[in-house]
C-alpha cells in the first residue's frame, strides 16, 4: 500500500467520521470543531489531487473565515449549546431514509457510469495557471464573484446591524449574553 492510498484512506475516514459528528453531535460547538476537521480533511484531499493552491485556499477561507464565523455565531446564539435540548427535528427517520437512498442512487450511478479519464500528468504550477485563468478566460465570473462578495459583505453588515430601536433594550452587548447565561447555568 503506497502512502498516497494510505493518505487517501486516512483522509476519507477522517472526513466521513468528522462529517458524521458534524451532523449528529448534540453540542453545536463540537459540530463546528468537527466541521473544521472535515474541512481540513478536504484540504488534504485537494493536496492529494495535486491542487495545493486550492488546499491552501480551502484552509484559509473555510477554516480561517467561515468556520470562525460559525463559531462566532454559535457563541452569540449559545443558549441551546449545552446540549440539553432536542437537537434534531422529527425528520430523522425519513431524512435518514432519503439520504441513504440518495447515497445508494449516487453510488449506483457512479458504478454504472464509465467516465473517460486521462492518464496525463497534471499540470504543474496550478496556482499560476489558476491566476492566469482568473484574469483571462474567467475574468467575468471572477469579477462577478468579487461583486458578490462585496454585496454579501455589505448585506451582512446591514442585516446584522443592531436595530436602533432595539438597541436600548439589548444594551448589554451581544458578546456578554452567552457568557452570562452560561454562568447562570453553571450556578
Amino acid at each position, binding site marked *: 500500500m503506497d502512502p498516497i492510498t494510505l493518505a487517501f484512506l486516512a483522509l476519507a475516514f477522517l472526513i466521513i467520521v468528522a462529517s458524521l459528528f458534524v451532523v449528529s453531535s448534540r453540542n453545536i460547538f463540537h459540530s463546528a470543531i468537527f466541521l473544521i476537521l472535515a474541512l481540513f480533511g478536504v484540504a488534504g484531499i485537494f493536496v492529494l489531487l495535486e491542487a495545493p493552491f486550492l488546499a491552501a485556499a480551502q484552509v484559509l477561507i473555510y477554516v480561517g473565515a467561515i468556520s470562525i464565523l460559525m463559531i462566532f455565531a454559535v457563541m452569540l446564539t449559545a443558549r441551546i449549546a449545552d446540549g440539553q435540548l432536542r437537537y434534531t*427535528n422529527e*425528520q430523522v427517520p*425519513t*431524512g435518514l431514509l*432519503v*439520504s441513504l*437512498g*440518495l447515497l445508494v*442512487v449516487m453510488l449506483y450511478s457512479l458504478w454504472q457510469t464509465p467516465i473517460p479519464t486521462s492518464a496525463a500528468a497534471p499540470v504543474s504550477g496550478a496556482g499560476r495557471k489558476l491566476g492566469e485563468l482568473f484574469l483571462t478566460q474567467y475574468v467575468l465570473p471572477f469579477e462577478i464573484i468579487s461583486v458578490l462578495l462585496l454585496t454579501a459583505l455589505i448585506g451582512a453588515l446591514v442585516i446584522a446591524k443592531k436595530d436602533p430601536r432595539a438597541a436600548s433594550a439589548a444594551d448589554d452587548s451581544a458578546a456578554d449574553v452567552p457568557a452570562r447565561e452560561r454562568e447562570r447555568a453553571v450556578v
Partner: protein
Amino acid sequence: MIQTAWLIPIFPLVAMAAIVLFTHRHRALSAGISIAAVSLSFLWGWSVAVSVWGDPTVHRMSFDWLNLGESMYIPIGIQIDGLTGMMLVVVTTVALMVQIYSLGYMRDDPRYSRYYAYLSLFTMAMLTLVLADNFFLMFVSWELVGLASYLLIGFWFEKQSAADAGKKAFITTRLGDLGFILGLLLLYTGCGTLTFQGVFSAVDSHVLSGGLLTIAGLCLFAGAVGKSAQVPLHVWLPDAMEGPTPVSALIHAATMVVAGVYLVARSMSIFLAADRAAMVVAWIGIITSVMAASIGLVQNDIKRVLAYSTVSQLGYMIMALGLGGFTAGTFHLMTHAFFKALLFLGAGSVIHAVHTNDIREMGGLHAKMKTTSITFLIAALAIAGVFPLSGFWSKDEIVAATLGHPIFTVLTLAVAFMTAFYMFRLYFLTFTGKPRDQHKFDHAHESPKTMTVPLQILAVLSVVSGWIGLPWLEHGFSSVVFHEHPHHPEFHVVWAFIAALVGLSGIGLAYMMYYKGSIDPERVRARATGLYTTLLNKYYFDEAYSVLFVRPYYTMCRGWFWFDQHAIDGAVNGLGRVSVAWSVFNRWFDETFVDGAVNGVGWLTRGFGAIVRHLQTGRVQNYAFIVFAALVVLWLLQ
C-alpha cells in the same frame, strides 16, 4: 398706403392687447394708447380714402385661410374701393372723435382702461368689417362687432337695465345673424366662393339667380335688419341707450348700425339682380323709417329720441338702397354718421351737465352751454335737411331715389317732416325756454375741452360733408362711391325745394309748439290720445313680442315642463321601478346562485387548501426533504 391698408385694423387690435395685457392698471396710459392707435388708423384710413378717390380699380390683398383642396377654399383678405374708403373715413373719424370725447365723459369711471380696450376692440372689428374682401371675414368681424357692442352696451353692468340691454342687443342681432349665416351658406353653395368678387361675378353671370338668389338676398338682409335695427328687430336699439353716451354715438350713430346698411350696399349686385328682395328691403326700410320717426315725436328721453331718429334714418338708407339708390343710401350713411354722432355727443354733453336724460327736466341750457347748444343746433339743422348743410344734399338724393314710387315719396317726405319736428322739439325743450328744474340748471356747466372740441369738429363735418355730393361736382360723391359705373343723378330742384320746405315746416311747427307756445302740446296730445299712447308705447312692439313670443314661449315651456314632470319623468320613474324590481330579482339570483357557485368554489378551494396546506409548513427543512425525496423517487421511477 394701400399696400399697408391691412394695418388699419391692426393698430386698435394692438392697442386692445396692450391695454388688456399690460397697461390696464394705468388709466391715462391706456387711454393714450387707444387714442394713439385710433389716430394712426384715422391717418391711414384718410390716406387710403384719398388715394382711392375717384379710382375705379378695386385693390385686393388676400391669403389662404382655409384650403381643403377642391372641397373648400376660403381665402381671406382685404379689398379697398370707394365704398370702403368712405367707410374708413366715417369709422375712423367718428371713432377718433368718440375716443377723445370719452376722455372727458368717462373721466370718473373706474373701468376706464377696460372701456378703452373695448372701444379699441370695437374699432378693430368695424374696420376689419369694412375692409373685408369676402363675406366670411365680414361675418367674422360682424360677430366681433356684435361682441364689442354687447360689452359696451352692458358696460355699466351693475345696472340691471344695462345688462339686460346688452343681452337684448346681442340676442336680437343674433336672430338676424342667423339669416346672415344662412345667406352665406346659400351663396357658398351657389357660387362656390365667398369673395365679393366671386359672388358678384357669379350673380352677374346668372350662375346664381331666381328664387335662390332672392332667398339668399333676403337672408343677407335679415342680418342687416338685425344689425341696423330695422323692423321687426329694431327693439334692441332704443334699449341700447343704456350704454355710455359716447358708445351710443359710436355704435348707434356712425358705425355698428350702419354695418347693416354697408352690407346691403356691398351686396348691391345681389339686390339689383333680385328685385323682389330689393322691394322687401325698400318696404322694410320705409316702414321702419315712418314708425321710428313717429315714435320719436313723443319720446321724452333725449337719447331715445335720438335712437328712434337713428332707426328712422337707417330706414331711410335701407329704403334708398332697396329702391336702387345706391349713391343716396351710402351718401346719407356718411352725412348721417357725422351729424348723428354730433347729436349723440351733444346729448352726452347735456347729460353730463345735468345728470338726467329727461328733456322735461331741462330747458334754457343754451345760456349755460353755448358750444354744445350751437353744435347741436347745427346737427339738428343738418338732419332736418336745411340748405346748405349736409343733410340737405343727402336727403335730396333719397327723395330723388324714391321718384317713380309715389307711396315712398310721400312717406319719405312725411318722415322728413317728422324728423325736423322732433329734432327741434328736442332742441327747443333742451336749450331754450325757462329751466324746468332749477336745481339741475344751476349745476349745469359747459363740458370740458376734450368734449367740446370733437363737437366742433363734427359740426364742421356736418356742414361740409354734404358738399362732396354736390351734383355738379366732377368728382363728387357719386363718382367716388359708385357701383359698377359712375352714377350722376340729376339735381331735382323742385323736389329739393319741396323736401326743404317740408323740413322747414316741421321746424316751424316745433317752434310754434315748444318755443312760442302758440300751439299747446297738451291740447294736441288730448285730441289724439290713442295715437299718442300708441306712439309713447312704441307701437306696443315690446308688448306684442311679449304676447306673441315670450308669453307663448313661457306657456309652452310650462307645458313642456308639465310633460317633462309627468310623462317623461313618469316614464323614467316607471323604468326605474322596473329596473329596481329587476335588480331585486337579480340580487336574489345573484346571492343565491352566483354567490352560491362562487362560495362553493371558495369552500372547495378552502377545503382542498386545508388538506394541502399541511405541505406548506414554512419550514425549509420540510421543503428540502421533499426535494431530495422527489429526487430519489424520480430516479426509482426511471
